[in-house]
């Protein structure tokens, strides 16, 4: 019952987001869609994804879109051709129908990966299966993922050509005493939350991704309040921080080759410690990369202003 309601809510919010002519309304409905998705992931027994969705959806995506939307020229729904509406409805419906048909026809899965996983969990050094998959059994994916994040960051840096002097970066300060005072309480709280999530990842839902998202949100909050991180810390330090996750991961992954094993095998005696170390570096890097993507966006606004 509650599941059907949630699905109907998802669909109606998605349709409203797409069809409403008012851009701000669409934005807020999109943020709410993220909130609803968080509930859906909890219902699906995927609390790790729910944590990431809550942190990324409200902390980063919402802020990014809000930031962009205020700059973009607003306009109403364009009057599109009748044929285009037809094609849009037709292809949307046919995709849905095809996917649903495929879902209902899906044969039983022959490979029981989860049983292999449970059998091997003791060897991984952590007791939470998702962390074990991310950082041990399928560590290759995670390595590539942080590489993709770095690529996105480099592409973004390539997009905006002018380098800003630091004075400009520090930006205007928010003259709200209450906000500034509460920041002193709130930022340590967010850092604590990120640490908790990182620590929790070894044996319960949580881990580097969620912690990195919360860390990025903390950096963004600082930036929004006029405490620009890139004006306080030198650029070199920031660059090192962005790279440290990938480099450390790669070093640990390839050092096993020296001992004559294949890439990405941890010595089983200290697999747990190594995973924690890599996760710490990954958290920093993910937080800094997401934050840098946000500031790049932010600076482009200044160029256009």
């Amino acid at each position, binding site marked *: 019952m509650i599941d*059907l309601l*949630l*699905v109907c809510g998802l*669909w109606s919010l*998605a349709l409203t*987001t*797409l069809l409403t002519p008012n*851009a701000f309304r*669409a934005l807020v409905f*999109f943020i709410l869609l993220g909130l609803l998705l968080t509930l*859906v992931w909890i*219902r699906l027994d*995927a609390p*790790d*994804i729910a944590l*990431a969705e809550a942190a*990324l959806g409200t902390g*980063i*995506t919402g802020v*990014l879109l809000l930031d*962009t939307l205020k*700059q*973009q*020229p607003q*306009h109403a729904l*364009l009057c599109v051709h009748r044929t285009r509406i037809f094609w*849009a*409805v037709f*292809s*949307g*419906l*046919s*995709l*849905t129908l095809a*996917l*649903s048909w495929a*879902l209902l026809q899906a044969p039983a*899965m022959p490979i029981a990966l*989860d049983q292999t996983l449970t059998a091997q969990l003791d060897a991984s050094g952590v007791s939470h299966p*998702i962390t074990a*998959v*991310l950082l041990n059994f399928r560590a290759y994916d*995670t390595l590539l*993922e942080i590489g993709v*994040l770095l690529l*996105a*960051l480099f*592409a*973004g840096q390539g997009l*905006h050509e002018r380098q800003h002097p630091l004075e400009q970066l520090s930006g205007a300060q928010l003259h709200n005493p209450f906000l500034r005072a509460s920041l002193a309480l709130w930022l340590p709280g967010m850092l604590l939350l990120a640490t908790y999530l990182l620590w929790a990842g070894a044996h319960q839902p949580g881990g580097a991704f969620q912690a*990195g998202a919360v860390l990025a949100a903390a950096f963004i909050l600082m930036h929004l309040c006029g405490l620009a991180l890139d004006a306080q810390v030198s650029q070199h330090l920031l660059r090192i921080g962005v790279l440290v996750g990938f480099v450390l991961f790669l070093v640990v992954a390839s050092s096993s080759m020296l001992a004559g094993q294949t890439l990405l095998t941890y010595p089983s005696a200290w697999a747990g410690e190594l995973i924690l170390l890599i996760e710490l570096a990954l958290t920093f890097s*993910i937080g800094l*990369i*997401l934050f840098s*993507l*946000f500031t*790049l966006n932010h600076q*482009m*606004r200044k160029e*256009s202003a």
Partner: protein
Amino acid sequence: MNTYLIFALGGAGLCGIGLFGFILHDDLLRRLIAFNLLGSGTFLILVGLAQSGRGGVDAVPQALVLTGIVVAVAATALTLMLIRRWTQLSQQSHLTEEDE
């Protein structure tokens, strides 16, 4: 009809809605939102289908989706930058179509 399958079907609907919006809109921001909907639908299908086939929690697709969500946010940020650059250069918020 278990919970997992309901949400997988919901994800299929979300995919369809995303594709619909992607084709319907000219505005690049709306297209980005539609694309994000498509992505969320895909994630729902992945996890929902795997778990409904198994009748329980399956950690492997969950880990995959977790990676995917973070990459999707980074891609969204990059796309927003591209959109801004385009708007700055061309003074319009949708792509020009020369062959119409």
